[in-house]
């Protein structure tokens, strides 16, 4: 595994021998992964390989039982934190299927979320006017119609609107570690370009991104530092950005049957 930065810096995310079961059935069977600040990692794999499980465990979703292993985030035991604590500490999960919340305008939801994070950071809450200014600026960047922000969150949004809205939330919340779960699925080329633009804008020496994706296509727009292949609950291969192209050529079956990482 490559490490772009000096060894003196603590990793952003450090997963060791992670085993996870859902309803008694093992899904993840010994994941090891280190993501350093400034890096973008792509995790690819066939359906059912455990990609989304990994994303949910990192975010603290109930119903996933960690049977062994550790997850450290900025040196802290991440599994001991509540989901909202992880979020306030700078973890963002872009949902594969963003959830509809009827009756709650997106802009109100986001203001509450941004302020929860700001209060945690000791920055003080934004008032409605300052928040709207910020939101408008970011909405423009992601080519999001302002009218969409006033509608109930995700309710009646098209697939593309939902995904763009996830990235919009990410940009507003300014996370240190973003885990994007199949954010590219169901996007047309234009939407993909916009989403990738949002992620690329976030890249920086203090931030890390974990992209979970089924297809190589997204990686044309967001070039990863490291690519991992997940199969059968294990990382079976890791490499540079070219590994994604191998997947495209050979399919997962060949790679998964090869030597384990």
């Amino acid at each position, binding site marked *: 595994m490559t490490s772009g930065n000096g060894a003196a810096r603590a990793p952003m995310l450090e997963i060791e021998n992670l085993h996870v079961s859902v309803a008694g059935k093992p899904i993840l069977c010994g994941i090891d992964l280190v993501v350093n600040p400034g890096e973008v990692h792509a995790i690819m794999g066939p359906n059912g390989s455990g990609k989304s499980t990994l994303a949910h465990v990192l975010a603290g979703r109930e119903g996933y039982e960690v049977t062994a292993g550790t997850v450290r985030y900025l040196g802290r035991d991440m599994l001991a934190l509540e989901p909202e604590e*992880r979020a*306030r500490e700078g973890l963002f999960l872009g949902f594969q299927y963003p959830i509809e*919340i009827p009756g*709650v305008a997106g802009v*109100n939801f986001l203001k509450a979320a941004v302020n929860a994070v700001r209060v945690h950071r000791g920055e003080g809450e934004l008032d409605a006017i300052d928040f709207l200014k910020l939101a408008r600026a970011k909405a423009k960047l992601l080519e999001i119609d302002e009218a969409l922000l006033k509608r109930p969150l995700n309710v009646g949004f098209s697939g593309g609107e939902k995904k763009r809205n996830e990235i919009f*939330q990410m940009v507003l*919340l300014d996370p240190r570690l973003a885990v994007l779960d199949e954010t590219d699925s169901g996007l047309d080329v234009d939407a993909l370009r916009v989403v990738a633009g949002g992620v690329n804008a976030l890249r920086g020496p203090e931030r890390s991104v974990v992209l979970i994706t089924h297809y190589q296509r997204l990686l044309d727009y967001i070039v990863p530092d490291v690519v991992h292949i997940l199969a059968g609950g294990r990382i079976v291969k890791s490499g540079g950005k070219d590994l994604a192209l191998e997947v495209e050529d050979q399919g997962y079956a060949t790679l998964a049957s090869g030597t384990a990482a």
Partner: protein
Amino acid sequence: MAASVDTAKTVGALGADEYKYGFVTDIEAVAAPKGLDESTVAFISKQKGEPAWMLDWRLKAYRHWLTMTEPDWAKVGYPPIDYQDAYYFSAPKKAGDGPQSLDEVDPELLRTYEKLGIPLREQEVLAGVAVDAVFDSVSVATTFKGKLADMGVIFCPISEAIREHPDLVRRYLGSVVPYSDNFFATLNSAVFTDGSFVYVPKGVRCPMELSTYFRINAANTGQFERTLIIADEGSYVSYLEGCTAPMRDENQLHAAVVELITHDDAEIKYSTVQNWYPGDKDGKGGIYNFVTKRGACRGRNSKISWTQVETGSAITWKYPSYILEGDGSVGEFHSVAITNNRQQADTGTKMIHIGKNTRSTIIAKGISAGRAQNTYRGLVKALPGANGARNYTQCDSLLLGDRCGAHTVPYIEVKNRSARVEHEATTSKISDDQLFYCRQRGLSAEDAVSMIVNGFCKQVLQKLPMEFAVEAQKLVGISLEGSVG
């Protein structure tokens, strides 16, 4: 709604020492002895300095009450009430009886006041702290009274109205809710001790919400409250009852009656925020709120709207109703009922369309959490003469958790072919997915629930007068504390 078959019970939820918060108050010198008979009724009437006609009316009610049985059709369960084991009249507390400062008040209560953002001075009044009589809101109240009097608006305790404005009271009292109406209303007619009286004369638009000072002065209105509001031709009044702050009240049974009357082109907007003690999380204690509220749109093109936010009481039994007599009259009902822990609410409305082209809207939102049971019960009725009557009903239930219940019992009776009645109902749950999504964005589970529930109720909350809408939003969150996590 008389012959309801829905009498499912959830007894057993309520403990044996049910009366802990009920009738154990030390009663001071001026009090009627325990129990209820004709002499109790006469005692109350005498204490209030009432004329003979009022006593006669009370006695008629009392004698009728003896022939009645307590209704059991509501979907609520509670142990039998012993009406002879209660006090029906006690003198108001003297200043100096209560705590001397906020330091002596239950910190839990203060914490809630703080969350609601209630100013310190008002906290003192609400908590019953003996405060200096000269403080801001009292002088404000006096100013208001002067302004109202200049416009001919009468706004006073009903006991004062009985003495000072007997013609108005005799003409209207019991004209919407007759003394024989129902078990609890009849009991109220016999023993009511106080309440409010409002009369708005022809063409007058009441210049202020009758709430600004009511919030402070409403405390200790008593167990059997009686309110009568009359809007004469072309007048308008907005009245707010209750308080977002929790009320600690030693009386367990509350049986209030409210009557509203609108004449031609008049409008009454009546808003309630009810946050009485709901009992503890195991269902011990708490108020029984058995209320009869009814408005009569007597005049042409007159309008009554009830808006209620019910978050308190162990049991709520309440159906603010409308008699749309005047042609073109309008009834609007907006309701939020929140039940948590062991609370039970059976609430809704009745719309009786009598006049031509009468219109009504019902928007009811019920939220259940914990082990609570929440029932919407509504009747929409169009009589044969109600040509062109229209009703739209929307009835939504939201469940938190898997041990509470939501029930919808709509009754529709249409006897006119040109009438149109629409009913829509939904039931939904706050899902784990929604909670997780909110928490992943940094919101606590409680803030997430509060936000989702407020979104669910928005349509109703925005009907409240501005200042109370803000407090009511916070109240929604507070009422559901402990329901998740």
